[in-house]
């Protein structure tokens, strides 16, 4: 996990939050792989965005919404 295990307010992440954030980071990294077949890449992007939403709601990351 690249980010510190704290939320935006500095509270330690719960085990579920860590897992959620980890999943998002995996999807985000994988959705950069342009060589993937469209059926994989586009669905990955959709999944990544939904995970971003969950992490954003819970204050697990501070990415501006513009970057996907």
């Amino acid at each position: 996990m690249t980010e510190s295990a704290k939320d935006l307010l500095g509270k330690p992440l719960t085990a579920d939050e860590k897992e959620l954030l980890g999943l998002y980071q995996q999807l985000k990294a994988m959705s950069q792989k342009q060589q993937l077949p469209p059926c994989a890449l586009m669905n990955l992007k959709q999944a990544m965005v939904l995970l971003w939403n969950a992490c954003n709601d819970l204050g697990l990351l501070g990415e501006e919404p513009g970057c996907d």
Partner: protein
Amino acid sequence: MTPNWSPYWNEKHETLQKDQLRALQTIKLRRLVEHAWHCSPFHRRLYERAGVTPDQLRGFDDIRRLPFMTREDWLGNQAEKPLFGDLITRPASEAIRYHLTSGTSGKQPLRVLDGRKDWSWIADMWCYGFWGFGIRPADTVFFAFSYGSFIGFWGAHYCCEKLGCLVLASGNMTTEQRIKQIVELGATVVCATPTYALRMGQTAEKLGIDLRRDGKVQKVIVSGEPAGSIPAVKKMIEDMWGGKCGDTAGMTEIGTIMIFECDHQPGGPHIIEDHFIEEVLDPETGAPVPYGERGERVVTSFGRGFIPLIRYRTRDLVCKVPHSRCRCGRTGDIYDGGILGRVDDMKLIRGTNVYPRAVESIVREFKEVEEFQIVITREASVQDEITVKVELKPDQQHIWPQLSVRLGKDLADAHEGLRFNVLLAAVGELPRFELKAKRLQDLRPAN
């Protein structure tokens, strides 16, 4: 077995203590302004002119260092650099949605673009509202909405898909077809403007359908007009449909809702404060007004990345009260009575202020009224006259002599004795609306 759902969409932040909420908003504000500073030339110019930089935003109150953004700024920018101006933070080719403001004000519409994350966030804000009002995966949700370029209930549609509800999109159906499908498929939730929720109820009566008996609607979610928080309008909708009526409010400039009524219904909607900063300011001076006083909504949205919305002057009139008014546990403050109208809605008639929403709240106390219209004229180039045209239900025509006297008196009593002309319109004479109603006609010459 029904799962034991949380009453909150996001308990972690919806119940955050106020000091923590302010800290979260401050962190998000600074990141948002940094994003706008680096990616939106429009915002960079705005801040440079005001002599403010992102690093000056250290505490919550530093938001006041930031200049306001207005609709005129936005329109001017799009006119100068068509089609979308340079306030967008990314190339237009990366957007996935394009929408317009509704155009009911008769002004040039605003154009908006959204990316994938924006659009997902837009649906998520509706989730706060729908979940908070008790919509759950087992619900069947009917959208009485035309699905055009006006953003309207688009986000709510995707919210309900996200929740796992059965979604009924009515698109270009007629009112009669919509009512029949609501009954046939047993919709448990109906979404519409308050005006159209009433119209569907009236049409059902004419079709001989008793929605309370024949339908299964438990909740009517309204949006798009201030009338959604007028108690008399809500009662009419609830009487017609047999379900609870919950108000929400949003705007195309945000792309979604920023306030929603929870199922405790404390007299107004909660602000989604972990995703928005809602300031209430004196519209003339720009100074903050305290709880319980009317002022203009100025919104900052943390969710839309394509078009940053920071200290945007909405011209909406509101009255903020503390979250403690409600016992639901949310710490988002409340707009007492919802959106009260527009700052520029106020009409001055012979020295008295008249707000269309206030007139509607009185007219809707009379259940015999089917539709109404407010007409303002200037007689002999001097005297302003205000007339309320009233269309009664076809079987209630006999009540007019008594109703007209009472209505005229109630309107005058609520407006410092101002005389209102009250006229009976023929059945079917007044216009009907599907989206936002336009019931005020100011026919006075422009000064």
